[in-house]
């Protein structure tokens, strides 16, 4: 267990996710048992409406689980205070940031907030970490640009750099490739894969880019209406998990190429 690569960062036990209203519980998915290790690059895939977002929201503490528990670094997430949680888990969300008048450096530097003093002054160490995050994401040229001057792809890189600067063991990204063209989808996922390897951080992202995820991920979490499976992509292909992802009337999974094809 002491082995670095075996160190478990995120673990869920019999997790059930969904919504509670006054009348009843709506269970979206249950019996979710996931283990993510240090430095793993993990993709979460599933059809629209299957509960990817609900799972992400539950893992990131936006909503409470219906049942079961989530452990981060062997500690139950409910036992974390908000500030300590911010030092272990950082997020890249689908929502737009409120102010785009921030410069790239300022925005990435906001990732240091859990570590700075009451007025948010950056220490030399903080600035070094921010600069390093900018280098790792190839953003040094854009450092002084305002966020409203950036393209979608550049902005996504900035948000990733911000999460890096937060210096957490786990980074969770909610659909980081939406709104991007084919090249930039591959670029962002490739970048994330590189970052997971270089920084030994665990990176979990949800996505619809199944073929890219199969090629790049160390592990994939596949949500179908029956179950939630997590395994290495090649094992999942062998088990035929991808066939069960979608209704079978329109597209089918081609095991040899690892892609979906439209049926004639």
């Amino acid at each position, binding site marked *: 267990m002491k082995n670095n690569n075996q160190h478990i960062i995120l673990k869920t036990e019999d997790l059930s996710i969904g919504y509670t209203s006054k009348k009843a519980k709506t269970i979206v998915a249950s019996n979710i048992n996931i283990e993510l290790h240090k430095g793993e690059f993990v993709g979460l895939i599933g059809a629209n409406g299957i509960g990817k977002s609900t799972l992400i929201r539950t893992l*990131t503490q*936006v909503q409470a689980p219906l049942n079961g528990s989530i452990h981060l670094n062997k500690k139950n997430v409910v036992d974390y205070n*908000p*500030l*300590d*949680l*911010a*030092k272990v*888990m*950082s*997020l890249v*969300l689908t*929502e*737009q*940031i*409120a*102010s*785009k*008048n*921030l410069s790239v450096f*300022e*925005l990435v530097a*906001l*990732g240091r*907030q*859990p570590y*700075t003093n*009451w*007025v*948010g002054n950056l220490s030399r160490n903080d600035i070094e970490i921010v600069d390093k995050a900018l280098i790792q994401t190839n953003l040094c040229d854009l450092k002084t640009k305002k966020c*409203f001057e950036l393209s979608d792809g550049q902005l996504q890189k900035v948000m990733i750099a911000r999460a890096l600067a*937060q210096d957490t063991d786990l980074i969770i990204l909610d659909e980081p490739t939406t709104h991007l063209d084919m090249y930039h989808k591959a670029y962002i996922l490739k970048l994330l894969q590189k970052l997971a390897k270089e920084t030994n951080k665990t990176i979990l992202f949800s996505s619809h880019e199944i073929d890219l995820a199969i090629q790049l991920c160390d592990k994939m979490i596949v949500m179908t209406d029956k179950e939630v499976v997590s395994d290495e992509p090649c094992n999942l292909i062998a088990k035929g998990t991808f066939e069960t992802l979608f209704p079978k009337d329109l597209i089918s999974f081609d095991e040899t190429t690892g892609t979906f094809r439209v049926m004639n």
Partner: protein
Amino acid sequence: MSNKKTYHKSFIALLAILIFCFFINISLGSVSIPLKDIFNSLINNATEQETWQHIIQNYRLPKAITAIIVGSGLGISGLLMQTLFRNPLAGPFALGISSGASLGVALVILGSSFFGGVLASLFISKWGIVIAASLGSFLVLLAVLAVSIKVRDTMAILIIGLMFASITAAIVSVLSYFGSAEQLQQYIFWGFGSLGNLTWHDILILLFIYGLGIIISVLSIKPLNTLLLGENYAKSLGLNIKQSRLIIIIATSLLAGTITAFTGPIAFIGLAIPHITRQVFNTSNHKILLPAVFILGAIVMLICDSIAQLPNSDYTLPINAITSLIGAPVVIWLLVRKRKMVF
């Protein structure tokens, strides 16, 4: 970093302008007083005429100080609201603070006939109005706060604040309908706003609460910067959203509530000063914005007041009208000339 130096220069320039405006403001008035005597009276030396010293020390100086407090306080509360609600249209009054104050004052002035006789005259005293305005804005704010605990969406709170404003405005117009002409005039005069009615004693009280509001605002700089990312990101950075929201709203109400109570509603400053500051400094970092809004707000208010008192005449224009007349075109000009409204 490289930016810091330019900010230093801008701040020194702004401070110089502030001091300049302060002296201009004191030297202008219905009675013309030579510059030399103004300086003399400020450092407590004898002036050529004793009345001049009296005018400056008991009338112009408190008014100038009030202008600084009002401009900086309303500007900062506007900045807090715009960041908290992530809405460039938010101001201290969007939360219903001014309408609450108006309601309180309307109840006292227009409703005094219902209370009758001795009680009425007690109510209409200056302190009666100050207390009524404070109570009114505080109560409306409590209502907004109570709602904000239930409603998670900040946009909804903003709309609820506007709804409260409509309700109070409606009650005020019903009261005006039944009020006498004299009462109506008194209420309308309060609505014009005035910086000149404060004694040194009033200023001390105002200064105390205002100071409290400023201190809380300064302590909120870091949460405010975090909120620039939006609430979900702020939460992921370990910020306690509910607590920060409460603290920021309290700071706003302390600043805007007391200022409105003492000077009447003063339009435009709270909304426009943060925008002008963002255009001038081209940043959204509250470590820069907060002091910049403070100084710019004070400058603009001093200028507005200097114009309102129509130098060398006996007339004083309603300050509320001047702030809008001067300020609104400035904002339009800035936005048209520079670029889109940054936030």
